[in-house]
């Protein structure tokens, strides 16, 4: 009889399929969510009312007809932009400060030819911190932080930075692990200190990829700014939530327009910047 060996990949694919089917079953049966109920006349009425509201049909004075609202939205857009830049800056600084012990080849001493007793200990601690900070979504960080800080741009930036710190740290550490170790060893054997090693050995070689990752995360942060705003962390998101609560649907259209413009602009700028340094 031919021995049938289940490889890890096939087993995973089956497990995933099973998970998806199980999820649908649990949604259908346990939660009794019915698809047909979605398309009742009542829902159709609410949906059409909502979208009409967004477009400002039957509205006496849609928000997008007033210059005042445009100015207000523009200010909020600027605030959101500042929040995203600040968040990226905080995350980058924190990741730079911690990234050296988080690289595997620093911990085992193969990069710098110096093996310290606490190499693996600090590696584990920093990596653990990275995992923790990136496993918690930005919104949850924002919900917690808003208990400490007053609503505004700063708590939003900190929440975004906390989540992205873990991601950037991991990405940066992987860049250092992939580095050519010879120049760094050379520096190390001629007596360079830790800081000098980072400044003259690691940074010049890794800077292009660091910059690429920073720009890429900035794009993502820009998209997420609106979400942390929902819990009161300032910017377009906060206004979005307020307008939603007041049923000012035409305001939402305007805010969504500015948000989309911001996201597309960030994508464009970061793409051009990445081509610029290539």
């Amino acid at each position, binding site marked *: 009889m031919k021995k049938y060996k289940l490889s890890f990949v096939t087993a995973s694919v089956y497990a995933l399929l099973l998970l998806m089917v199980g999820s649908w079953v649990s949604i259908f049966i346990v939660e009794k969510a019915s698809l047909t109920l979605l398309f009742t006349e009542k829902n159709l009425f609410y949906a059409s009312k909502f979208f009409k509201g967004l477009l400002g049909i039957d509205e006496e004075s849609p928000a997008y007809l007033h210059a005042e609202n445009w100015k207000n939205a523009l200010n909020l857009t600027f605030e959101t932009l500042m929040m995203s830049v600040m968040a990226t800056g905080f995350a980058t600084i924190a990741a730079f400060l911690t990234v050296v012990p988080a690289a595997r080849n620093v911990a085992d001493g193969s990069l710098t030819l110096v093996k310290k007793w606490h190499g693996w200990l600090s590696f584990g601690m920093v990596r653990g911190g990275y995992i923790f900070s990136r496993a918690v*979504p930005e919104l949850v960080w924002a919900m917690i932080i808003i208990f400490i800080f007053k609503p505004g741009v700063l708590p939003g930036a900190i929440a975004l930075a906390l989540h992205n710190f873990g991601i950037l740290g991991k990405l940066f550490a992987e860049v250092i692990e992939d580095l050519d170790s010879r120049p760094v060893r050379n520096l190390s054997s001629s007596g360079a200190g830790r800081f000098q090693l980072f400044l003259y050995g690691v940074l010049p070689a890794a800077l292009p990829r660091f910059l690429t990752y920073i720009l890429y995360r900035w794009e993502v942060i820009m998209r997420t700014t609106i979400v942390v705003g929902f819990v009161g962390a300032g910017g377009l998101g906060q206004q979005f939530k307020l307008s939603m609560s007041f049923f000012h649907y035409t305001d939402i259209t305007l805010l969504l327009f500015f948000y989309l413009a911001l996201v597309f602009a960030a994508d464009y700028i970061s793409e051009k910047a990445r081509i610029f340094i290539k």
Partner: protein
Amino acid sequence: MDKRWLSFELHKRKILTLILSLAFIMSLFSVEWNSELIHSKGLETAKQIATAFFTPDLSGDILILAMESSWTTLSYAAAGMSLAIIIAFFYGILASGIVVSEGNIKRYIRPFFRGQLGFMRAIHELVWAWLFVASIGLSPYAAIFALAIPYGGILGRIFADMLEDISPEPIKALEAAGASKLQALWYGYLPLVRANITSYAMYRFECAVRSSAIMSFVGIGGLGYQIQLSLDDLHYDEVWTFVYFLIALVIVIDLWSNQLRKRLVQ
């Protein structure tokens, strides 16, 4: 002085670093730095939250609730991803323009579908969720559709990029042997990108779990909903229990997808 030092090419990275640092410094001026930034009892709250971090609530009720909401979160993520994969499959093929021959149709079909994918992923999943809840009410489908659309947009775009980037030789060989466009797709394109797209979808699945957890913010059940409820009751110890469950869920999927990707992409 060395002439090379003056070349523009050499300093591009430094210029970009400088611009980015300046932008960061400028952004710091948008906040007024004084003690008004923190609530009057903010530091005390911070201390309470920090203490609760080490003493999470591990009573039976909370653990069962946490497990139930973990499954809700996971099942919404899996259901959303399954729809996202379907969206990505069809949109990806159309957006890469490989099924139509060169010419006028291709010139219009690619930007048309790529634009739609771009629109889907430009709006954050939580905003989609909000729009869905406002139009179809609080139903699991609001969460599932809200996950499926942006993730379908991202996966579809990556899928289209992969289909466009593969080496043309195997396809030419198939076409020379008389394969139709559909046969070339089935026997040429799809097997070539299968490993890469599976590994990318797996990575996205991990993100989907995290997103599905925060879907609850608009009122749809799951871990995030429990976190929010506990926060509103100022039960910080319960908050951390749910957060630990979320972290465990994310880490398990992260490890799984890492193992899978290592084997898929050699």
